[in-house]
């Protein structure tokens, strides 16, 4: 029933469609991309032509190839970070909320602290201190600063579920804590968890783009964020190389919208109050 509601939801399908498109692009990059994204032997600053459909960069790289290969890193960062964030939210929100007591006190105090820490400035500070630049520190930084909000939502949801009759029944029948959390609480929050996952993925993709644009990632890797960094550094727009600057942003926005649509649609499907009347 829920699955069908999801499959017939136009927003969900639009989001899933975009996501599948980028996943295919990332997976088949070696086959689709006309050139190596790091090959710098082409004439620089070419406009679109038959040989280079989207022209070349100021360093003589093929923009289309960079765009296709760039989808890999962006997707990986988005999905890995979202998985890590969801894991932390699960532990802090659901476990803390269910177990209660001093564990919950400590965990929710921690949540409140991270909730009010300004995310982007903290990310910039940490990234500036990290001496090894690359994808892993970026994933780490985004995860550390991004889990609090969802954890708070999950915790309050757990608190309402905990007092429901079926959970009390399970407790009385002597089921273990872990079993109750895993078989009774988590399945009932699947919708929120999935929605949170996509929300976290959106946050991760946008944060990654921002950090890399500032040059706080590894600027020698090919991602949409570093493409924007180089395009801005080499003044792509002033040179008339608009496709170099515009398209990576469009791709990020599209991927972000896909995550946003999925987040919204899942919320709509599992929350009956948001359904169309």
């Amino acid at each position: 029933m829920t699955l069908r509601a999801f499959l017939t939801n136009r927003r969900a399908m639009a989001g899933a469609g975009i996501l599948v498109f980028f996943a295919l692009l990332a997976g088949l990059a070696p086959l689709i991309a006309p050139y190596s994204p790091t090959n710098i032997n082409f004439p620089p600053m070419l406009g679109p032509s038959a040989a280079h459909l989207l022209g070349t960069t100021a360093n003589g790289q093929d923009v289309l190839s960079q765009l296709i290969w760039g989808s890999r890193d962006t997707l990986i960062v988005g999905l890995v970070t979202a998985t890590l964030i969801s894991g932390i939210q699960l532990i802090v929100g659901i476990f803390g909320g269910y177990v209660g007591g001093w564990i919950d006190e400590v965990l929710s105090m921690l949540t409140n602290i991270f909730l009010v820490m300004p995310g982007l400035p903290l990310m910039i500070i940490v990234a500036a201190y990290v001496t090894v630049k690359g994808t892993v520190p970026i994933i780490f930084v985004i995860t550390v600063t991004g889990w609090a909000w969802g954890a708070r939502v999950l915790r309050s949801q757990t608190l309402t579920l905990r007092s429901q009759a079926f959970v009390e029944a399970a407790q009385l029948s002597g089921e273990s804590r872990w079993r109750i959390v895993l078989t009774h609480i988590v399945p009932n929050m699947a919708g929120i968890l999935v929605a949170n996952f996509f929300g976290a993925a959106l946050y991760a993709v946008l944060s990654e783009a921002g950090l890399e644009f500032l040059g706080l990632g590894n600027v020698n890797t090919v991602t949409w964020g570093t493409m924007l960094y180089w395009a801005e550094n080499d003044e792509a727009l002033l040179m008339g190389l608009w496709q170099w600057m515009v398209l990576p942003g469009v791709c990020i926005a599209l991927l972000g919208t896909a995550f946003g649509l999925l987040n919204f649609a899942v919320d709509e499907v599992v929350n009956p109050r948001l359904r169309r009347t």
Partner: protein
Amino acid sequence: MRYLTRRVLVLLLTGWAALTINFVLPRLMPGNPAEVMLARFQGRLSPRALAALTVEFGVHTHQSLLAQYVAYWGHMLTGNFGLSLTYYPASVAQMVAQAFPWTLGLVGISTLIAFILGTGIGIAAAWRHGSRLDGVLLPVSLLLNSMPYFWFALLMLYLFGFVLGWFPVGGGLNLAHQAGGWAGLGAIISHAILPAATITITAAGGWVLTMRNNMVAILGEDFVKFARAKGLPDRVVEFRYAARNAILPNFTGFAMAIGFVVGGALLTEIVFSYPGLGYLLYEAVLNLDYPLMQAIFLFISLAVLVANFLADLAYILLDPRVRAVGRS
């Protein structure tokens, strides 16, 4: 009262955490990055300033970590944030004080406009949910909410600054315009319009989404149906019954956003070279100016903390249910 004690506790703990992050981070990283910084500034600073820095960042010092931490707290509590390396001999506090009003003016006003605009549009979309208007507004807001806003800022800058030439391409105030009086004010405004428009447009999308969803949920409540059945005019039901209730969560969000004003829109400021805190932080990062970086982060954190604390207090006044929970 329990609610209030908790809030105060969170305020204090978070303040402590923000201060400690500044102390721990440079010491935590493999190959203390401050050493690189010190090597770069060797010879450019007075020996006394260098010595102060080595203590502050724990490079080549024989003090124990605890002694360093105590000394660090002493500096922070007496407002001694040190000298900026980039803008030497200006002090870090001076630089922050100079940049802060620019950020407050630009981001504060645009956040307010975005909130009012987004909430209004959200109300309209929810009231007609399922209609064509809602069908268009929703994906548009999602798109606005999902795009990298610094990229949108770049495109705006290019289109309206370079191609059309309607607005200046950066800075807060052209030196030529430092006339003061009305001319000066006009120049400030013309420099602020593009970044303000960027922040407003990209931030409004999020407000539309949350307000719309809150309000759609409220519209399904019995008291709204009853108000309709009673034959109350649509306007009254829309604004006094539904919107008034739906705005509560959005209001907390707004209070938080006000806190983030101080550090918010960092990237927009950077794109427009706007002389606010965001741009200053960027300069500090680029130049490995760790004292300035630390001070800005601290300032932003404390501003966010205080704003949040005030928001929590306001929430007690706004929502009687919070008070009830606190008593039980």
